[in-house]
């Protein structure tokens, strides 16, 4: 049973009176636990910050009391506001008044009505003696030596077992989280003959768009699933310029001034959603990469490293736009397995 009050030696009291923190005269630390001694008046008048409070404790009490009353009113009002399903601002206002004033009062109570030291506490070195350290090291090293070294085979078997478990555990924890990438990143749903449809699944006719117009298109049948949209999305633009620069071999990819590019930014995959009509630039709002629509969507500004892949299109016998083929390269940002194919710079033909 611990004594409620410690029997105290006369010497301690003297310590407390002289109370020099520096040498640690106060707060005797017999057998490691604190036995502090002094009883102080609540607030010290010799601290310039606290002198007023020390002289007029009643005044401080009144202020703290007032804070608490306002706080009580606030939290009660918050309750009322909640029951009434009041506006967010009312809820927030009452909550603020309640908590802030309760908190402010409590802080003031702690600061102005409770004895303010400064109080001192001794710091004892955390480290053990050299002997203790050695004893621990010895225990570890010697015991391991005795137990393990003589039975190397057993230790080896155990280590093998745990090691295998570690590798095996990686399967449920890591491998089964998702499929291997395989060729997924190289593919879209565009293929030979895919009809270009808009967001609502309506096919695009050659007469549908004004010069200067822009439309987001998908391969027919895939316009409504998010995962398909994410890779298939393409922009169809009817360019104004008569001087379309195309890459070698792309001469017939843009019938009637229609060009179609992947809408996935080659920087980080944001949809290239802005079209600067006059300059005929596609702009990615994420990091301002700009792609020149007249020049094979070559990046003319910003961090995007590659042109937007172009979708070869043609006008079928009924006047609807269709893909000649899929994209000739993966769409979107770069990745390790991506090959260099189709990366050439657009060149005038």
């Amino acid at each position, binding site marked *: 049973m611990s004594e409620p*009050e410690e029997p105290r030696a006369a010497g301690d009291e003297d*310590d407390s009176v002289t109370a020099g*923190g*520096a040498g640690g005269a106060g*707060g*005797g630390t017999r057998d490691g*636990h604190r036995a502090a*001694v*002094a*009883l*102080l*008046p*609540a607030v010290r008048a*010799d601290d*310039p910050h606290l002198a007023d409070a*020390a002289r007029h404790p009643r005044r401080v009490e009144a202020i703290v009391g007032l804070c608490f009353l306002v706080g009580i009113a606030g939290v009660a009002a918050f309750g009322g506001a909640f029951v009434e399903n009041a506006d*967010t*601002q009312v809820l*927030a*206002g009452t*909550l*603020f008044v309640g*908590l*802030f004033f309760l*908190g402010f*009062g*409590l*802080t003031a*109570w702690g600061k102005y*009505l409770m004895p303010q*030291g*400064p*109080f*001192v*506490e001794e*710091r004892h070195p955390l480290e053990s003696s050299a002997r203790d350290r050695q004893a621990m090291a010895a225990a570890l090293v010697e015991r391991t030596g005795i137990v393990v070294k003589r039975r190397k085979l057993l230790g080896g078997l155990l280590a093998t077992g745990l090691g295998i478990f570690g590798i095996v555990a990686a399967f449920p924890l890591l*491998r089964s*989280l*998702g499929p291997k990438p395989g060729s997924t*990143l190289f593919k879209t749903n565009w293929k030979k003959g895919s009809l270009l449809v808009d967001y609502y699944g309506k096919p695009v006719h050659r007469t549908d768009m004004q010069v200067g117009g822009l439309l*987001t298109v998908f391969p027919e049948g895939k316009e409504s699933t*998010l*995962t398909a*949209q*994410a890779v298939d999305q393409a922009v169809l633009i009817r360019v104004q310029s008569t001087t379309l620069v195309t890459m070698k071999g792309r001469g017939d990819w843009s019938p009637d001034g229609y060009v179609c590019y992947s809408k996935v930014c080659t*920087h*980080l*995959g*944001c949809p290239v959603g802005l079209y600067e009509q006059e300059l005929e630039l596609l702009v990615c*709002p994420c*990091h301002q*990469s700009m792609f020149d629509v007249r020049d094979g969507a070559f*990046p003319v500004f*910003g*961090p995007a*490293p590659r042109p937007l892949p172009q979708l070869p299109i043609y006008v079928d016998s009924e006047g609807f736009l269709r893909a000649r083929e899929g994209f000739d390269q993966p769409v979107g*940002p*770069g*990745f*390790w397995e991506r090959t260099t194919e189709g990366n050439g710079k657009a060149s005038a033909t």
Partner: protein
Amino acid sequence: MALTDSQPRTRREARRKLGPYGRVQQAINELDERVGIAKGGRSLLDKIFPDHWSFMLGEIALYSFVVLVATGIFLTLYYVPSSAQVVYHGVYKPLDGQRMSEAYESTIDISFAVRAGLLMRQVHHWAADVFVGSIVVHMARIFFTGAFRKPRELNWTIGITLLILAILNGFIGYSLPDDLISGTGIRIAYSILLSIPFVGTYLAFFLFGGAYPGHIILERFYIVHVLILPLIIIGLIGAHLGLLVRQKHTQFPGRGRTEHNVVGSPLFPQFAAKTTGFMLMVTGVLGVLGGFAQINPIWQFGPYEPTKISYAVQPDWYMGFLDGALRIMPSWEFTAWGHTIPWEVFLPAVVFPGLIFNICLAWPMIERRFTGDYEIHNLLDRPRDRPKRTAAGAAMIALLFTVFAASSTDVLANYFHLSLNAVLWFFRIAVVVAPILAGLVTWRVCIEMQRVPGAVQRKRAMIVSRTPEGEYVAVPAEPRPGDEQLELEPEPVPLRIELEPEPVGASATTAPTDEPGVRRVTR
């Protein structure tokens, strides 16, 4: 011992059995007999907290985390982590008939249909921003005062880990509503994963359960955001504070303060009162921010669709430095031997933050390398007394601030009517120049400040008055007590505290003993 013997027969006896401190004593007795808490407990109540204001920064972090947990639990009651598509027919009419994920629908419902839901959502978001912010400022105080030196390197490391986890969890939480802006953020995160050489595509596919966007990512983010990361953070905060109690606080040098003591207020009751009050105030302020300062109005952005994009794509502030780094990086993609390394992404979004955080983690070691200082330090440095460290810190802040500001190149270009190209090049140059300049200037200022005599002395107030003739004269004010005596001498922690404050005069006499063993101290 027979039971009946210990059975009290009279009330008086019962009271005596409780001991002089009544039920509290009894509870402590019961506990102590089983787990032995009295000695350590008393010691904990006496733990000294330094009174300097800068020690409050960590508390802001702690209390905003408490608010995050509380509001977060509220949100879990209504949020639906599902990317299943539904058609909206709820109370918010402008979105009526739109296709959206259940996650977005439930977040709209929290904002408009759940009682106090919008308040909780916005307070949660504000608390996250304040949480990360206060950790950063707290970390700056630890850094510039050298509180990370031996023996506190481990706590510094835990702190940085907390910062990283806080940023990560902030980003993941931001993604949960599945609105247009956050969805774009997820898309960018996926592309950043793709950019990692060798393993990037595998990492991305494993995390997303296949190609982007798939239909599992919100569910995975959800469990990470509400359970896994918070548990780790709670554990680390526990370790952080546990180490703090074991190693005790650092303190600024001053009268009566040495390497071998701590001067301040004891945990109970002074610090407990002040800090509990502070917690309530922090909560109140976060509440008022959440109620009056709109944050992340997802109903304006619309639901996420991979083909749509909002013009104002802005992440939360603590992701700004990544966004800025991505913007000012030139488009250096490397392709050879049938492989691609997208340096324009990998460098700014993976290598750069990796370097920054690793430098931070290793800083105590790096500094030790240079100073050869392997001593234990409990007294803090004044930043001006360590010009090189302070300069290094200032350079780091300048670097991060520059890349952060670079995340708004487009806004700046619009606002100042400059070409985007000019702004871009300004930041590319600034990112090199600003840190060097900031470091040099800071170093110089520190050296100058060391030379100012009496820099530690408190300034005497001057009273400026106007004479009837219209002349102004400045007279030094009466010296106040604190002017001569910068700091009070510390006292040992009191055994008991008297409830009624003494009038000033009364305590100035020699103390009579009220009770054996208790003395009033004269000052």
